[in-house]
């Protein structure tokens, strides 16, 4: 059971706690509260459905950021066998905020790339909370080009607040690194499957976050700007993020509606961390079926289709 309580879960958590207390009391004092307990249990169950069903965009953002939410390395551990991690950009450094490696998923040899958040503060400091520097994105690009050279389908796991916003990242060309990846991904001559597993923060997410298929977890989000930053700009008040997260249309549903994502993997009530094993199985089967469809295709056609689809994204008028 999760220890971290999200804001909107609080009423449920309180009721759950009350139920635990009641049970303990019953047991300790032999009060025979069976009926009261059953009643409370029903109440909890109902509230759970009320709380978790039809989450608002802002609630989904919280689920997507939940510290116990499965992360890239969890997916790699659960879905991948015979993993060989690749390190470094051969230029400057090895950025632990990005995982890259050879891995076998659903019986297929693949190249896997993902944002790598930590599970605790120590890991998060080393991995910079999953926010890549240019060297991380350049490592990812090296892995993309290796995948292309050896005909390995590329699978990416997207989960970042965004590319690192800092002095050194700017000095080493954060924008340049992102743009190179976009150009490379767009033309890569192997199938590319991207999976949004948590946060999809702007350019840092996009730099490994599109391809022939975009699979979104139900509570994953993908946005041009964080709802807080958007609220800051619009209202000079980042606490209005709940509003802007709705305006920005950044949920999995929105992305499918906008023609950007292809498929939604449902999560257990309460979020992926409530039953990670079930999520892993669903994600594996979604990736497997995407690869089944894509790997048979002629490569020139595949890349052309990707380009045409990318080129068709956007809503505008031609004028008079």
């Amino acid at each position, binding site marked *: 059971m999760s220890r971290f309580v999200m804001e909107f879960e609080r009423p449920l958590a309180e009721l759950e706690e009350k139920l635990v207390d009641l049970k303990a009391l019953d047991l300790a004092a032999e009060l025979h509260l069976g009926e009261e307990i059953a009643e409370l249990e029903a109440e909890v169950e109902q509230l759970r459905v009320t709380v978790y069903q039809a989450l608002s965009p802002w609630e989904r953002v919280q689920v997507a950021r939940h510290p116990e939410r499965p992360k890239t390395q969890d997916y790699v551990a659960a879905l991948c066998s015979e993993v060989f991690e690749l390190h470094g950009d051969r230029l400057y450094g090895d950025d632990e905020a990005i995982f890259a490696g050879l891995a076998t998923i659903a019986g297929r040899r693949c190249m896997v790339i993902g944002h790598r958040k930590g599970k605790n503060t120590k890991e998060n400091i080393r991995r910079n909370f999953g926010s890549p520097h240019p060297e991380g994105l350049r490592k990812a690009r090296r892995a993309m080009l290796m995948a292309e050279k050896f005909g390995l389908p590329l699978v990416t796991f997207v989960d970042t607040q965004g590319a690192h916003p800092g002095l050194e990242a700017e000095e080493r060309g954060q924008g340049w690194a992102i*743009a190179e990846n976009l150009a490379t991904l767009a033309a890569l001559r192997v199938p590319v499957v991207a999976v949004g597993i948590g946060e999809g923060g702007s350019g840092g997410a996009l730099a490994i976050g599109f391809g022939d298929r975009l699979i979104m977890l139900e509570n994953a989000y993908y946005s041009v700007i964080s709802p807080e930053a958007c609220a800051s700009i619009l209202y000079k008040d980042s606490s209005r993020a709940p509003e802007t997260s709705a305006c*920005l249309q950044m949920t999995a549903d929105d992305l499918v509606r906008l023609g950007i994502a292809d498929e939604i993997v449902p999560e257990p009530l309460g979020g992926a961390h409530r039953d990670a094993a079930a999520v892993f199985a669903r994600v594996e089967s979604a990736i497997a079926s995407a690869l089944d469809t894509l790997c048979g295709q002629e490569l020139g056609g595949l890349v052309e289709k990707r380009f045409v689809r990318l*080129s068709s994204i956007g809503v505008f008028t031609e004028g008079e």
Partner: protein
Amino acid sequence: MPISDWFKAREGRRYTVASADKSADLPDGVWLKCPSCKHTLYQGALENTLQVCPHCTHHFDMSAPDRVLSLADEGTFEETEAGLSSLDPLRFSAKKSYAQSLASAKEKTGLAEAVVTGRALLGGHPVVLGAMDFRFIGASMGSAVGEKIARAFALAQAEDRALILAVASGGARMQEGMLSLMQMAKTSAAAERLSRAGVPYISILTNPTYGGVTASFPVLADVILAEPGALIGFTGPRVIEQTIRQSLPKGFQTAEFLVQHGMIDEVVARGDLRESIARVLDYLCLGDVPDAALGAACPILTEGGDE
């Protein structure tokens, strides 16, 4: 006035950077203070100096129409996709609705969108030329800007014309949400195609160029130029200071800083841009100028049949 008329009205004007002494006889009109040297300037006079302060060479923002005319050989600019403009697919409404922002931007600038593109000659070279206009919602890149940029790439490729893009932008247009973010991938994909086709592409980064725009098509150019003092980066300094609490060095994210850090090829003053670009094109577009200064001396390399 429709933009086509505007272009007509402007045609024939010569742009030169005025020497400092011209400032003495400024006529009456709208006055402004140069943020760099604090001199008071007549706004109308800046039109004769490419919007460059005659006292300190501070580069003021330049409109997209002014920009394309300042770069194209006289009388050669023909606009393309002039009517293409934004819709409001998310019905985005916060303090001010996106629809309102669009309407007022159009009114203020007389433009249909934040980027102007077209065919032109530049130093005699046939080019596709585009410029972004910061006055239009911060020249942010939404679907329409992305589409116009992507079409400029496609046109350059189809007609084997070098592509010249003068960039300014606050970043992605958040009012179009993910549609806007995806324009980064879309324009980068177009840039990659042009590059593979071997067609030259030069970008000019002007003040300010930030966010998702910096992280897409502008930095994929063969040669990247920037105007003096232009601020260019992915994350803005305020966000860096707030998020990471790093103190930033003087000159951070200026064009000069970026040259030092290996990201751009050269800082070129506005008045020299046309000449610099023409010079680069003389190298990258070998053979497309019938009366190239060097005539037959251009290297004619023969490709083998083994490809």
